[in-house]
């Protein structure tokens, strides 16, 4: 048994529309980088957990293909799926394997090739990310529609505006400019967001994260092993998780994600910290409104006041809590299986002071990742320290 678990190696493929590679070569980019980063070889890996939502790629059972290509045959018995939080589900499984004593070094790989099907097919798959029979089947809800329903209610109850939401997208694009791994490296203005075509009102194209291909890999180790291997481990101080109903209508509230609040509270409690202790955060900004709701669910702002952090620049570099300084899901991209592990990649770079021009200035080195699957159907919040 190991009471502590560390991140000792991270890798991240280039995100984007990756027509140049299949899912195998895409995962290779992340896995090789993570092994090199940790200074380990394949022989050192006890167990591999592969996270992939698959479905939008031709490989609907991708784990064996990915494991084989990366030289991990015999070590990859588990594929996990938790919609857009699949990467964090892989991380949680790695964490549990180490905490239990089953394994000492675990590699978590998150990968998805989402652009192998067309947009209408992709929307029909995403729309099923909720309640199929009583919502998608009857009403043709798309994934953007679900968050649009949250956005409309947030606007009506708290006075949040479309301009406010656009600020989240503008911020994401600004930071993605300096991220070589990012899908969308182009700065945009509030006006660009407002003038982009409506996807599901009030959400417009530039309120939405893109459909991306990508992979991320993270190597976790027990305390004993981590201390031998590296001088710069990033420790997992708290893990919080929760889930919510498939049906959106039956939730009874549409301005906040109950599962994310619960995951955050559990993670804070385990880490022994309060929201104000968090210096850097990666939040699940799959849509502009989601970043605003995330601030509230994490306790960075009161309910309904999330947008004030954006307006005041409190979540910018140098702000009270630097958030998504890598470009967020909005601009770095959101390959569902990879996203949660890509967040750990970015946090690790920050915690090692290796984030270059977007380096956040830490005092206590306390960071957090917030990864939501579906519309809060799954939620994972992890707290990190150095």
């Amino acid at each position, binding site marked *: 048994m190991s009471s502590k678990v560390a991140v000792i190696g991270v890798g991240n493929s280039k995100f984007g529309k990756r027509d140049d590679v299949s899912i195998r070569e895409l995962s290779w980019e992340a896995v090789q980088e993570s092994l090199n980063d940790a200074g380990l070889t394949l022989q050192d890996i006890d167990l591999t957990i592969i996270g992939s939502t698959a479905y939008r790629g*031709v490989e609907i059972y991708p784990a064996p293909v990915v494991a084989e290509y990366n030289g991990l045959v015999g070590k990859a018995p588990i594929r996990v799926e938790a919609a857009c939080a699949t990467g964090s589900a892989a991380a949680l499984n790695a964490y549990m394997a180490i905490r239990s004593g089953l394994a000492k070094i675990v590699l978590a790989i998150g990968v998805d090739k989402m652009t*192998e099907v067309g*947009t*209408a*097919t992709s*929307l*029909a798959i*995403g*729309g099923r990310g909720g*309640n199929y*029979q*009583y*919502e*998608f089947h*009857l*009403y*043709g*809800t*798309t994934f*953007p*529609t679900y968050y*649009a*329903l*949250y*956005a*409309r*209610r947030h606007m*009506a*109850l708290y006075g949040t505006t479309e301009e406010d939401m656009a600020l989240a997208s503008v911020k994401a694009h600004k930071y993605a400019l300096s991220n070589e791994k990012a899908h969308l490296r182009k700065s945009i203005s509030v006006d660009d967001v407002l003038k982009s*075509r*409506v*996807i*599901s*009102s*009030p*959400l417009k194209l530039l309120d939405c994260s893109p459909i991306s291909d990508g992979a991320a890999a993270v190597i976790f180790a027990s305390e004993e092993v981590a201390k031998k291997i590296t001088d710069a481990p990033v420790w997992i101080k708290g893990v919080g998780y929760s889930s919510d109903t498939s*049906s*959106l*209508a*039956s*939730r*009874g509230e*549409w301005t906040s994600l109950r599962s994310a609040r619960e995951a955050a509270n559990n993670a804070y409690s385990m880490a022994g910290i309060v929201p104000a202790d968090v210096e850097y955060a990666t939040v699940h900004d799959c849509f502009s409104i989601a970043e605003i709701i995330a601030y509230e669910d994490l306790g960075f702002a009161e309910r309904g006041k999330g947008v004030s952090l954006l307006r005041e620049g409190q979540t910018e570099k140098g702000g009270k809590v630097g958030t998504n300084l890598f470009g967020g899901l909005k601009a770095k991209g959101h390959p569902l299986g990879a996203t949660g592990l890509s967040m750990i990649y970015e946090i690790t770079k920050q915690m090692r002071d290796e984030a270059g021009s977007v380096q956040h200035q830490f005092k206590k080195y306390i960071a957090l990742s917030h990864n939501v699957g579906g519309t809060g159907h799954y939620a994972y919040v992890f707290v990190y320290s150095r």
Partner: protein
Amino acid sequence: MEGLPLYMKYQIPIEGYERFWEGLKKGEIVATRCKRCGNEYFPPRVNCTCGSSDMEWFEVKREGIVQTFSEVFSKPQGFEDFSYIVGIVNVGNLNLMCWLVGKPRVGSRVMLRTDGTRVIGDVVD
């Protein structure tokens, strides 16, 4: 290169839920209630989380209040030929999804009906 297409056609059971699906055709909107603990369910279900399977059907209220809504422009496969506004409407203890007809706002009053296939909410004000 082009991958092999994968056509997936599903057959879904409605056993135990005939009242709901037949109801939509006849203009009825129904939900279930547990006879043991009184829990009400929409989407309807034939088992209660209290452990009982002794459920009854009841008609939901027809007048409701719009909680939120969204007009879908980028449509999924299967809905290309429809123009629609998805809404969530509160009717007493329950919230249900529907298509809204009219010019909704959060707080609008609606009257619910079916079009033979799905629940429609006509915006009253």
